């Protein structure tokens, strides 16, 4: 395989963006990535997007967006794996460059979620769960993650306050990110007092509904070195993808996410790295409990220790292993198809040393974990500064 590096980074505005549609948000991010790379075209495009058909009544995004960007004719494909759509789009782009099918590929993600009501949005997101075995019986994602939280609390003694501390930490991080949707700092008391969604999860345990897009441009390493213009070159050294039963109850254990463990093992094996080598992590904190379980499943802490990570300060900026310094899904926002790509934008920004107030000191190896559903699709990516 050829070596692959990230040469361009772009983000659209994130939040409730009333005056932009899916195509204009995506184009904002794609143009920003092209400008960052110093390019005006690419060989190929991948677009991660979960369910534009339900959110805005539009499918067939590949051709639509290539045309919108002014380069109709290039191969362009939408990739879907629920909330892991962005991560899977990244992997598809990586494969094109690594295999030699293309030299420069735009890997992107987008979701326009606020054109529908809250109920319609919840229903659209629920299509990522098992329609026959879960949704038909009334399960939605807050309910499924609430069950995971209950199981984790029961087995390991994880506390309600420890869940809240994840949200508090990520909002503190997000307060330093001008791109974040919710930049206000919050307290444990705020989380505990916020409206109940699905016991034990309150509204401040949940990531928000967000409009947004993100884009990165991947290039073969020698091309990337030419485009670097003095900036550190950020390589993707490992990428692993794994799947599992979609229905939570079909898995032997609700307190871990086996697909995340498998994807991490694959990514670490490809990179020749292990959990001890990682300097910072962007992971899929769609609910506070998710950050706790994912840290354990990635091998970044022992099973049952996830609740203590935010509490002890280990995962805060300045701690031994900063997690979600972008604000994570909780504070930065979660336009579902864009999240996996936005994690790459954050890690590359950090490894380039351009993260300003939220810069992690001496960060040279970063890890991203992006998952769909209750973790039935996971992509784990290891990025490093090229020597």
């Amino acid at each position, binding site marked *: 395989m050829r070596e692959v590096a990230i040469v361009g980074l772009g983000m659209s505005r994130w939040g*409730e963006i*009333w*005056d932009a549609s899916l195509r204009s948000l995506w184009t904002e991010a794609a143009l920003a990535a092209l400008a960052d790379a110093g390019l005006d075209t690419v060989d190929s495009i991948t677009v991660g997007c979960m369910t534009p058909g339900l959110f805005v009544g539009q499918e067939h995004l590949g051709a639509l967006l290539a045309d919108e960007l002014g380069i109709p004719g290039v191969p362009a494909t939408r990739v879907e794996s629920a909330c892991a759509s962005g991560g899977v789009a990244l992997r598809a782009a990586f494969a094109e460059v690594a295999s030699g099918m293309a030299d420069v590929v735009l890997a992107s993600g987008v979701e326009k979620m*606020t054109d529908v*009501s*809250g109920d319609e949005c919840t229903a659209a997101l629920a299509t990522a769960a098992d329609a026959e075995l879960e949704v038909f019986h009334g399960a939605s994602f807050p309910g499924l993650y609430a069950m995971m939280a209950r199981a984790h609390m029961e087995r390991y003694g994880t506390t309600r306050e420890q869940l809240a501390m994840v949200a508090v930490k990520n909002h503190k991080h997000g307060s330093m990110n001008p791109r974040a949707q919710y930049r206000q700092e919050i307290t444990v008391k705020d989380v505990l007092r*916020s*409206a*109940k969604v699905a016991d034990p999860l309150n509204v401040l345990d949940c990531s928000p509904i967000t409009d947004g897009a993100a884009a990165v441009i991947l290039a073969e390493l020698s091309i990337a070195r030419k485009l670097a213009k003095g900036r550190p070159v950020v390589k993707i050294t490992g990428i692993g993808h794994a799947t599992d039963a979609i229905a939570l109850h079909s898995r032997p254990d609700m307190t871990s996410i086996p697909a995340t463990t498998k994807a991490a093992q694959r990514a670490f094996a490809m990179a020749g790295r292990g959990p001890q080598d990682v300097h910072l992590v962007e992971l899929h904190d769609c609910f506070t409990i998710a950050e706790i379980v994912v840290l354990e499943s990635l091998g970044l802490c022992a099973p049952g220790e996830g609740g203590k990570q935010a509490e002890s300060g280990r995962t805060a900026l300045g701690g031994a292993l900063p997690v979600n310094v972008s604000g994570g899904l909780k504070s930065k926002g979660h336009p579902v198809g864009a999240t996996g790509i936005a994690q790459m934008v954050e890690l590359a920004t950090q490894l380039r040393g351009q993260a300003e107030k939220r810069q992690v000191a001496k960060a040279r190896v970063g890890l991203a974990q992006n998952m769909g559903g209750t973790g039935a699709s996971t992509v784990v990516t290891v990025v490093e500064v090229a020597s």
Partner: protein
Amino acid sequence: MSVGIVGYGSYVPRRRIKLPDIARVWGADAESYERGLELHEKSVPARDEDTITMAVTAARRALKRAGIDPLTIGAVYVGSESHPYAVKPSGTVLAEALGATPAVHCADLEFACKAGSEGMFIAASLVKAGEVQHALAVGADTSQGAPGDALEYSAAAGAAAFIFGTDKLVATLDAQCSFMTDTPDFWRREYMHYPRHAGRFTGEPAYFKHTLGAAKMLMEKSGTKPADFAFAVFHQPNGKFPMRAGKMLGFTNEQMQQGWLSPWLGNTYSGASPIGLTAILDIAKPGDRILMVSYGSGSGSDGFVWTVTPRIDEVRALAPHTRVLLDTNKIYVDYGTYAKLRGKIRMGE
């Protein structure tokens, strides 16, 4: 020649329902409405109260304070999104009840929550043009919220009436303006019982854009700034929005407190900022300047600058004060009674 308010009056139904009593029925979190939207209770019209009856009472109170011959009223406008009839004016009944017919121009207006201020804008303009000696504008609503919908926690009932003229003014109208765009955030089609709304879209791009837009336009037009006003009142779909809008513009709690009724009244739609204005006139001193900005979904805002005259001291005791109507003589109803009164129970044939 100054144009302004000659007489004003308000009406608030006696019945109230507490927010937790609504939330309990729907399994909703009452605290998130009480704390998040600053709503605690709302008025409920009785079975024999509607937009017309409330308009008549408010207008009679305005007439009393104005002390004019009703036959000098040359125009009557009733703004509401809950006119009892789809076809047949509310204004004809009102004008007849006041004894203002037949030499009177009349129209029912509709613009979601700003139909009342629309009538005020037109009434003042007709007086200013010299077409009529006096003109009456009423904002009144028995607003609807679908059972279990977020609107059910705020949709309330009430009315305010203002008689405009050029003589014996209690407040002069110093400036007025409108700020409007095609922004569909809330609507009800014919034959629909309850309105639909676009959730959070009703906030930033709708309420705040137009309310702030009209307020800024108005202050620029009148050469004023927030510190020039003794009072400010904004449309109040809940308790939170008007205070946030006011603070964003640079108004203080002290300026807004008196006209801020929604936490205990609910959203009276076309009556909202007009009733707030009556509460302010009840206590304002001669020379006080008042800024008022309405908001109606669709969307638009009307803005007014008023200056209170010495005659206020002669008329304010002639009719009940709005805060007294709001704070006393209340009858609390439970959800079942509320559902019955609001016609939410389907009866046998």
